[in-house]
């Protein structure tokens, strides 16, 4: 997928008379793909964390923050792809609001659970082994 996007971007920019390879377009497509893929990785890791972690508070870490970084990286990739236009300014605003609202929402959920008296699981935790002999 990545390779085809890069080649398409380079080919679209080379419709001049002579054959020139558009290094700037190539670099831009490459950087934006890299950023979006890194963002996807973090979102995937966050999802796995929600599935694997033991209790509510620890799951909140994975759901709230790892996803935020993933979304920010995806937005960064989109900004690089759209170049210096009005769209990228709007995307920058979206990224900024996400940076403000996401921790606020996470704090609201954590605070609600704390106020309702949900006790966090403390101390060391290890994933149970596949054989089922660990507690």
């Amino acid at each position, binding site marked *: 997928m990545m390779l085809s996007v890069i080649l398409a971007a380079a080919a679209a920019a080379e419709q001049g008379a002579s054959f020139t390879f558009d290094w700037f377009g190539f670099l831009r497509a490459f950087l934006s793909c890299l950023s979006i893929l890194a963002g996807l990785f973090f979102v995937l890791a966050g999802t796995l964390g929600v599935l694997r972690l033991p209790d509510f508070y620890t799951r909140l870490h*994975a759901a709230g923050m790892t996803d935020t970084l993933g979304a920010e990286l995806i937005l960064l990739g989109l900004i690089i792809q759209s170049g210096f236009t009005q769209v990228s300014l709007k995307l920058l605003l979206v990224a900024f609001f996400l940076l403000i609202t996401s921790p606020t929402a996470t704090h609201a959920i954590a605070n609600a659970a704390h106020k309702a008296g949900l006790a*966090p699981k403390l101390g060391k935790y290890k994933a149970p082994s596949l054989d089922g002999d660990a507690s």
Partner: protein
Amino acid sequence: MRFAFILAIMMTVTWLTLSGYFIPLILTFGVISIAIVVWMCARMRILDGETVPYLSSLQTVSYFVWLFVEIVKANVQVVKAVLSPDMEVSPTLVKIPINSEVDIAETMFANSITLTPGTVAVDMQPDHILVHALLEEMSAPEDFKEMGERSAWAVGFKAEES
């Protein structure tokens, strides 16, 4: 007066970013709504450094750069812990003392704690923040101290020494 001026400039920038139309009718609407908002803020007497925190924008931007690096570092730690087969985590609750009198500095600090993966601000009290940390080594008080000083500096206030 100074704050009204800064607020008007910031709202103009936001309006132009979001609309992108430069025809007289839309621009007139923009001028009218900005004037109404500034007038309402002045009438509510909330035109001060807390509602208009743009005087220290440069510091805020440089703080966000520092924070972004911290976020990436902590994220790598969390992802490593989550993806390793054993998944050894050690959830901890710590109380972080705060001594800032200013609401926006407290908000900035608590938001920064929550934004850094591995730590969530659970409860805000007048003299401390209750923080839930995913890994025990993330709950060292010195790191929070540095973050608190930097976040207070970012919104234009100096954290007092306790």
